[in-house]
């Protein structure tokens, strides 16, 4: 079987849209709401989660036949927690600015339901290579949604993208224009509305996903 056969490719690409962890499985909503005020934070958070899902899937897939069933969840937690700590330490040493931006959210990756969900549902029953693809796919599926939300929330809420101003200063009410940043967009409530709108649009395109 080649490395990127149809089935393997499906593990990688499926979670990007048809089987998206956020839109279809409604997992990882908590951090989706919390870290999407700025696009940059959303992107780095998404990539950190991708790294952790990918590695934890591979490691647990390698260990899957040795793990005693009764302490299965504990073993998973230890591995995920260790990976998150390593990601945090590496960011602090080599990408200090970014790690400051993310502050507490890096530690909170441990609680991301997608990671435990993929380990339980996939890595424990599959070989390391498909598990790696599945981990990367799900991480990227999560990253895409975070990026879309970060884009709209930062643009409409702060008038910037990745920290650069994109709304001309002259448009603002303070400078004689008629435009104001939407304060609702930087509140958590806005992300709930946004994620709802994204799910709506996604279901409208993929009619077979609509629940009866």
């Amino acid at each position: 079987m080649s490395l990127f056969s149809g089935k393997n490719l499906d593990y990688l690409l499926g979670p990007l849209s048809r089987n998206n962890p956020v839109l279809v499985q409604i997992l990882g909503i908590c951090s989706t709401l919390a870290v999407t005020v700025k696009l940059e934070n959303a992107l780095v958070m998404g990539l950190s989660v991708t790294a952790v899902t990918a590695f934890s899937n591979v490691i647990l897939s390698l260990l899957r036949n040795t793990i005693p069933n009764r302490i299965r969840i504990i073993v998973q937690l230890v591995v995920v927690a260790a990976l998150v700590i390593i990601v945090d330490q590496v960011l602090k040493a080599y990408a200090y600015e970014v790690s400051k931006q993310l502050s507490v959210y890096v530690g909170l990756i441990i609680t991301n339901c997608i990671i435990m969900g993929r380990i339980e549902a996939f890595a424990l029953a599959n070989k390391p290579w498909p598990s790696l693809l599945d981990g990367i796919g799900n991480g990227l599926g999560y990253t895409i949604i975070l990026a879309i939300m970060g884009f709209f929330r930062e643009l409409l809420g702060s008038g910037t993208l990745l920290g650069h101003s994109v709304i001309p200063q002259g448009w603002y009410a303070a400078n004689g224009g008629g435009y104001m940043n939407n304060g609702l967009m930087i509140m958590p409530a806005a992300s709930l509305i946004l994620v709802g709108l994204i799910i709506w649009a996604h279901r409208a395109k993929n009619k077979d996903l609509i629940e009866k």
Partner: protein
Amino acid sequence: MDRQGNTYTLLYSIILVVVVAALLAVVSLSLQPLQNENKQNEKRQNILSAIHVTSSAETASKDFNQYIKEQYVVNSKGEQSEGDAFDIDVAGEYAKPADQRQLPVFVAEVDGAKKYILPVYGAGLWGPIWGYIALNEDKNTVFGAFFDHSGETPGLGAEIATPHFTDQFQGKEIFDNTQLVGLLVVKGGANGVHEVDGISGGTLTSKGVESMIKSYLSYYEPFLKQR
């Protein structure tokens, strides 16, 4: 061995924990020097940004030595004492009673004029906030300010760290004649030499900045009154 038996489970968990602990210890120890250096460079950058010097992590050490001419420690009575101001952990000093704290002072020279840079530290809404206030040679007019935080709300309280907020402090005065008033962070329509505009949606953090500045300047008050 029976994979579901007690002995196997116990051994498995012991080995797993030992391996993970060893791995984390190695990672932590090997990255520590880099992390400490990052922290020190960040501190240098922060101190420099209070006097409007933008420095990158690579040049922080050089710029710091170039601008900061003198550093010393004062106590709550304003007496100067020996000590390396840079190595003082302001957060650690904050936990001590006010009269036992060691208060660092950095003296910078910008375009031939002396600037005093004083650290401030206090509580925001979610966690600690801190910063540096640079005063002109008269020890009254603010030359620049820098603030940072550990976990204020992005887009709201976290805005205290942006130039949009800190630029307002330049030219403000902390004394009204001989009375220390600090700098007041007000809701809309700041006017006069003691007031700056707060952040909409970040009122509690703004108030935290105000009380942090007020309390720290009062610790430094004896030092500031030596003219």
